[in-house]
């Protein structure tokens, strides 16, 4: 038993993924953990980081306690540099202005393909999920960071449906499809940070979070995952990181 943690799994996700973002980057963020992480990064180590929202917003500052319900309402535009049509903000991805696309995920597979459309057979689904939104565009056109809970049912060998492409079937298959730019960069979970093998494009463990043993990752992953012998260790969330986060989301809408 590890010592009692003073943070929730969602807070851990936000902190760990926020650390991956670099100052000066242009980040296309979804609401929830991605937005919290990007805003956290701005407050802690990346003041020159710019957030873009799918609703058509460039460079807003989120007001603490007024987190937007989606990327498409007026709260997203607070202190923004520019608002523009949805199609045009998404076209910035295609043009190549965006460094990182950052979103959550419902189901992911060993090659980083994401499913947010159907659980089960798409022709007769057990669950019809809401769909891609801009997820397919973002993951098709830029480097991706995905933040999600590490559960066996979410980390599967092969997704039921590729909504947002990762490395498709691995190797060069992504580029072979015509997706010549972008790809999965990191997957951040409440157990570990994962990246992808340069050649096979299979997911592997880059670093384990504090108190997490390799078997815990294996047990919660639905496919054989490579964990190197000398796998890295992340530093636990710091007081200043948690303070910024709790100020942003005092009602814990996204960090409960």
């Amino acid at each position, binding site marked *: 038993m590890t010592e009692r943690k003073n943070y929730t799994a969602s807070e851990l996700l936000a902190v760990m993924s926020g650390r991956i973002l670099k100052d000066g980057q242009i980040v296309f963020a979804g609401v929830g953990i991605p937005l919290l992480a990007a805003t956290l990064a701005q407050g802690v180590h990346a003041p020159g980081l710019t957030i873009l929202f799918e*609703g058509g917003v460039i460079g807003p500052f989120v007001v603490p306690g007024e987190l937007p*319900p989606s990327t498409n309402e007026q*709260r997203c*535009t607070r*202190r923004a540099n520019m608002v523009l049509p949805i*199609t045009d903000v*998404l076209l910035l991805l295609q043009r190549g202005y965006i460094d990182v696309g950052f979103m959550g995920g419902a189901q992911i597979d060993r090659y980083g393909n994401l499913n947010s459309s159907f659980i089960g057979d798409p022709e007769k*689904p057990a669950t019809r999920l809401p769909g891609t939104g801009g997820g*397919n*565009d973002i993951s098709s056109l830029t480097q991706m960071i995905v933040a999600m809970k590490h559960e066996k049912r979410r980390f599967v060998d092969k997704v039921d449906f590729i909504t947002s492409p990762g490395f498709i079937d691995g190797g060069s298959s992504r580029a072979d499809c015509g997706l010549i730019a972008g790809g999965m960069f990191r997957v951040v979970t409440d157990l570990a940070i994962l990246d992808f093998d340069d050649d096979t494009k299979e997911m592997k463990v880059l670093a384990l979070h504090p108190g997490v043993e390799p078997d815990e990752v294996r047990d919660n992953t639905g496919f054989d995952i490579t964990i190197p012998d000398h796998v890295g260790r992340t530093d636990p969330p710091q007081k200043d990181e948690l303070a910024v986060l709790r100020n942003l989301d005092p009602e814990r809408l996204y960090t409960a």
Partner: protein
Amino acid sequence: MAEETLVLPHLELRRRTAERDRGLREKVMSLEEAASFVSDGDHVALGGCTMSRTPTAMIWALVRAKKKNLTVSRSIMSSEGEVLYGSGISEHVITSWFSQGIVWGVSKVMRHYTESGQARFDEWSHMSIGLRYRAGAMGIPYMPVRSMIGSDVNARLGDEVKEVTCPFTGERLLALPALNPDIALIHVQRADAYGNAQLDGLQFMDIDMAMAANRVILTTEQIVSNDSIRRAPDQTRIPFFTVDAVVEVPYGSAPHECYGVYEPFFNHMDALAEQTKKDPEAGIKKYLDDFYYGPSSWSDYLDLLGAAEIVDASRRGRSIYND
């Protein structure tokens, strides 16, 4: 009536446009009169996105007029999509994301109607929907795009998209068919009697949609004078000659938001999510009885939403202009 071909032939598109009265004329009318512009079977495009500038009042009028077999497209569908399915005015939705909103999880109504096969939800990537309207607005038959290829979103669309090779670079791209809706429903903050529309804040896909559509019904929080439009023509986003009807409807997007005027009515949305959780079909039908069929007028509908909720949503809405 809607054409059967995926892309409207260019000369047919131009013929329909040429037939429209594009003169500078007043076109103010009631919701009920405007509803008569929509024919059964039409492709109807909805302006706004998710819970923002949704043309709720016009949808309300179409539901009350018992329209049938509409195909409805939008960038992202929220609770208005549940109303479309539940009322039966549309069993075919084309969008990129469909749920009430992230905070309420997956829409039980959307799940119920799509999983049971009662209704269809064609999923396109968000940018693809936008580029389809844009190609429609540009008067070209298709738009190449670098997304959707390689995914099952693409695969599931079958013949509605085609892989093409760039004639200059040899790159593989996806060709998206232009979308020229039969009619677009767009809600704005202000417009004049001719249909010059000014919209504040987020524009979503509304401008392309207005240019692409064969008809446009504009609902507006406020009708303003043509003089006031002409004082700030740089603020005009939709020109009068694309517009066929102008309806003044205060709180025309409620329970969704209208930028700078009111934010979403969150309590109302919470109640709708709760009501449709256990039995989605019964829940949405009760909602329609209470809020769509029950009220005698739009003001009566607003009465049901409640003064306290309207005041709260308005106070939050206006706060966007207060630093």
